[in-house]
């Protein structure tokens, strides 16, 4: 196990360097000059512009700028935001819980609906439920997030007035961050109605962000179940006289989960990409919205640092999934 972890950590090194290179060059390839953007409509004098260029080091060759950046990164310093002047690191970890909370809710939504839907579709393959579910999943998978979010907002916020349109919490409530998770903090605050408000704010973003993972998990579960259900050991389980529910949900699902867990690991990247759009639409104060805003402001350190930290998060999640995979697949655990 330790060996496995160490070897996986070693493979992180090239990925890590690759991500720094890409994020560093990506933001610089975009047209637009951060100093001009900072100056805004007023503009600035030639001398002031030159002074700022020197202060930020933009006058030096890219290679030496990258070198400086990497020296900082290796010392755990991602630089300060051009706009807020605060360390990128601190900003990231202030905003990250919001994204994490939304992502966890979206994943739970996808799993709680997708697993049973996939199982039921597999058992009733070719029947009405199966066909309906699979075509719905295809639609869910190919629907643009943006459009889907707008439709939900129009119906549930606009026409029915059931859910708020943006943010994480009604303005009526105010309390300090403890964990950064609104669902938990609102309970800790003890204020009446705060928790309900947090839930209401979460519903639409969760559905929007969870739709693609839901479609993927339902389809994957269905096909994995179909394969497993024709295995010899399922016939053995039936020959023992076990009730169908036990055959399906213990003997078959346990095996079908192995490929599904792999897919869940791959979905984490999709989830973070989706979070960027979802957070922008719902003004959700997480890292997705923060990244988008920073790209518009050409806030180089934030974009570079944010991308790097997101990549590290994805790597950690994938590592966790690999470890989890070993636990649910006994054949891997041994070796």
């Amino acid at each position, binding site marked *: 196990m330790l060996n496995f972890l160490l070897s996986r950590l070693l493979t992180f090194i090239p990925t890590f360097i690759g991500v720094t290179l890409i994020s560093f060059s990506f933001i610089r390839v975009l047209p637009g000059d951060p100093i001009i953007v900072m100056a805004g409509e007023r503009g600035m004098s030639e001398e002031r512009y030159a002074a700022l260029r020197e202060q930020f080091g933009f006058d030096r060759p890219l290679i030496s700028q990258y070198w400086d950046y990497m020296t900082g990164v290796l010392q755990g310093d991602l630089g300060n935001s051009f706009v807020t002047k605060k360390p990128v690191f601190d900003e990231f970890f202030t905003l990250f819980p919001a994204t994490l909370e939304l992502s966890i809710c979206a994943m739970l939504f996808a799993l709680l609906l997708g697993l049973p839907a996939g199982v039921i579709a597999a058992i009733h393959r070719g029947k009405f439920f199966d066909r309906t579910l699979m075509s719905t999943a295809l639609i869910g998978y190919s629907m643009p997030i943006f459009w889907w979010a707008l439709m939900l907002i129009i119906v549930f916020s606009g026409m029915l007035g059931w859910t708020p349109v943006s943010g994480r919490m009604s303005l009526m409530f105010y309390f300090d961050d403890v964990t950064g998770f609104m669902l938990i903090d609102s309970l800790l605050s003890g204020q009446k109605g705060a928790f309900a408000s947090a839930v209401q704010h979460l519903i639409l973003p969760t559905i929007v962000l969870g739709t693609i993972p839901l479609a993927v998990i339902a389809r994957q579960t269905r096909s994995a179940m179909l394969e497993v259900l024709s*295995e010899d050991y399922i*016939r*053995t*389980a*039936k020959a*023992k*006289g076990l009730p169908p529910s036990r055959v399906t949900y213990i003997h078959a699902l346990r095996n079908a989960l*192995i490929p599904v867990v792999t897919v869940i690991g791959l979905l984490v990247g999709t989830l973070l990409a989706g979070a960027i759009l979802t957070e922008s639409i719902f003004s959700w104060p997480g890292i997705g919205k923060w990244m988008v805003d920073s790209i518009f402001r050409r806030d180089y350190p934030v974009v570079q640092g944010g991308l790097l930290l997101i990549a590290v998060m994805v790597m950690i999640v994938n590592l966790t999934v690999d470890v989890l995979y070993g636990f649910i697949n*006994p054949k891997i655990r041994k070796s």
Partner: protein
Amino acid sequence: MALLEVRNLTVEFATTSGTFRAVDGFDLSLDPGDVTAIVGESGSGKSVAFLAVMGLLPWTATITSDVMMFDGTDLNGLSPARRRQIIGKDMSMIFQEPMTSLNPCFTVGFQIKEALRIHLGMNRSERHARAIELFEQVGIPAPETRLRSFPHQMSGGMNQRVMIAMAIACKPKLLIADEPTTALDVTIQAQILELLTSLQEETGMALVLITHDMGVVAETAEQVSVQYAGQKVEQQDVRALFSTPHHPYTAALLAALPERAVSKHLPTIPGVVPGQFDRPDGCLFSPRCQFATDLCRTQPAPVATPELGYSRCHYPINLPVEEVV
């Protein structure tokens, strides 16, 4: 009263290219404690017939029979819930491929204890004690540690022992062993067969041994029923079948045994069992039969008397002397 009585069992599969009759008028009568072998080539419907008895066929299968009684219970039209109380308890089955017949995600201990809980309602410690006892009974060394193994950590022979332990866990009245040794190497094959026969003697359960190996039949069974293309073509007691086969197919199977070879080259039966599209009109064996006449090729063969081993043939061979005259 017979323990298992099956008459005129027919199984048809709905396939994309039409219906396919895998079992065609299968009959069997077993008394408690009987040891019967079912022999026949690959594709002759041996497995399908007994999966139908167990109720384990997929929904594409249509099962019809005149009689299907087990231990006083009519299996025809039995509700799935009632059948689940019988299979795995009074009637159990083991399969051809031990390596794929056990669930790779659970320990063998979990898989054996499961049946004990469902059928016998034993508590945790009773189940554990019984599982160890069963492992000892089927000759698995170090049962205490083996219970915690996963199937992939054990050999095919050990896995087949686990399957047998699972099948006899609830002291069944009938054990159906579907080619239990086909996937194993020769020395292990002999051990597993020995285990099955000794367990049969110990417990007095009835044993159905499905095989395509005449050698296995000779060593283990009392009764033999020969299957061809979904039909029973002959049924006799072992000695009689080996000395005086009445159906040309049985004779050909026996001639193909290495021990009986008279020349340097082993005789074989030319051709294969007919499939969905090449079923002949008359006797199903006629295209491969060296004695076949026009009658055989056009008229389905009648079933002969018990003295002639119920031989399904127009011209049964090895007739008793007086009839030849």
